[in-house]
């Protein structure tokens, strides 16, 4: 297991605990694999430089 895989496994375990989401042992590897995929995809978004003044579009109407 590489350092980054280890980091992701730790993140999955710790975050699941923090938000009170028990992950049964049988599903744990599947969840880690999926989270790894999400993390790789998220990088395409997070690495992209957006102008500072970019606002999220939806408007909340009270």
């Amino acid at each position, binding site marked *: 297991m590489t350092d980054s895989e280890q980091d992701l496994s730790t*993140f*999955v375990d710790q*975050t*699941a605990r923090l*938000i*009170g*989401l*028990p*992950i*049964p042992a049988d*599903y744990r590897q*599947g*969840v*880690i*694999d*999926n*989270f790894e*995929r*999400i993390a790789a*995809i*998220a990088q*395409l*978004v*997070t690495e*992209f430089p*957006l*102008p500072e003044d*970019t*606002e*999220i*579009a*939806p408007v909340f*109407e009270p």
Partner: protein
Amino acid sequence: MSQALPDATSLAQSVQNHEVSATSIVASAIARIEKHNPLLNCFTTVLAEKAMQDAAAVDAAIAAGKDPGVLAGVPFGVKDLFDVAGISTLAGSKINAENPPAAQDATLVVRLKQAGAVLVGAQTMDEYAYGFVTENSHYGASRNPHNPAHMTGGSSGGSASAVAGGLVPLSLGSDTNGSIRVPSSFCGIFGLKPTYGRLSRAHTYPFVDSLDHLGPFARSVRDLALVFDLLQGSDSADPVCTQRSPQPCLPELTKGIEGLRIAIADDYFLKGAEPEMLTALETLAKALGATQQITIPEAHRARAAAFIITACEGSNLHLKDLRQRPQDFDFATRDRFLAGALIPATWYLQAQKFRRWYRDRVRELFAQVDIILAPTTPCPAPLIGQTNLILDGQEVLLRPNVGLYTQPLSLIGLPIISVPVQRPGKLPLGIQVIAAPYNEALVLRVAAYLETQGIVSATIPDIIDRRWFRKY
């Protein structure tokens, strides 16, 4: 040999003209469902008795000299996430089967019924709409009428299969990342994903609030336009539904394409597709006189943003059940939902900000062109159970990649029709006709032109049980 069954418009005209009764049309739809549904598995619930009562009411209205509505006696089905009074809204899940029956019909179901259409049942889908294949571990896979060894696509697979197989002329489905367009492509029919917020989503089971759209499937463009016109209109029960006035599209269909600036999406949208998809795209472009290409910038990041928003919002919706009973989810959605619940807020917010930036860039493109063409799917319908695809010479997982060309476009809610290209002896495939927001009339116009030219059509195949023949 393909069969010619009338579209919804001509069925309704026959009923209005006293040539045929609504009761006999609905009875024959139910008979066709009973005959083919065991193979195609496109309906999870068939409402035979209620449908016959509703059809009799249409006939009674006609006998009494009342206006039966523009869809008089037309049978239709809805994806199993639309509320239908009296039955539980399953949304493809085992968990929701424990819910009480819905107290009322979804807004869009009400609007079709008010026009005289008759609801005949609820249709198979991927669990909670989280998929592109409609291979549901609780309710089985829906099958493609063109070759039942092949998938329908998803997540509105049952809705597309029912229309393609001639079981009903109309269905309603939902599209969050491509779930109307992908099955339209695989099943060879017309599917309209309207502008985000254009049609009410009230009383349907949600998936991703930021991205959920509802829309119709049909075998003719005039049916799509007729139904879309009936479905338009604001609804205080859906805060996302637009306050804009409805724009009737049916009168626009005959206006042709003269003066329209039509371009092919290049770069991202021309990479990875099988050569036959690109051939179909070229055929359409030629018929439309489209020679210009246009680049939708950062489409791969748009797809990534759609992926993150979907995983995050979708998982949050099911958090309680994920905590208490993960074993009751479809194995195909379970691990993705669990992983999605762990996404850091900063990734989600960045994806939403990107969405805004990308929307502005694509709006700028529509100052240069009126219509953009792109493949709907990277390939025709894969086999049921197939797990991998070849994209650009590389083997990749099928499920996350079927929506390659649909996801970047629904992210910003553009109106799109997937138009069907039939290829004798081969599976059909779909091309996306895309316009600027609120320009449904334009995509319908272009689709109608292509239909008139014989370039696109939805023909009903002879349904033969070819499950065990792996070669088409």
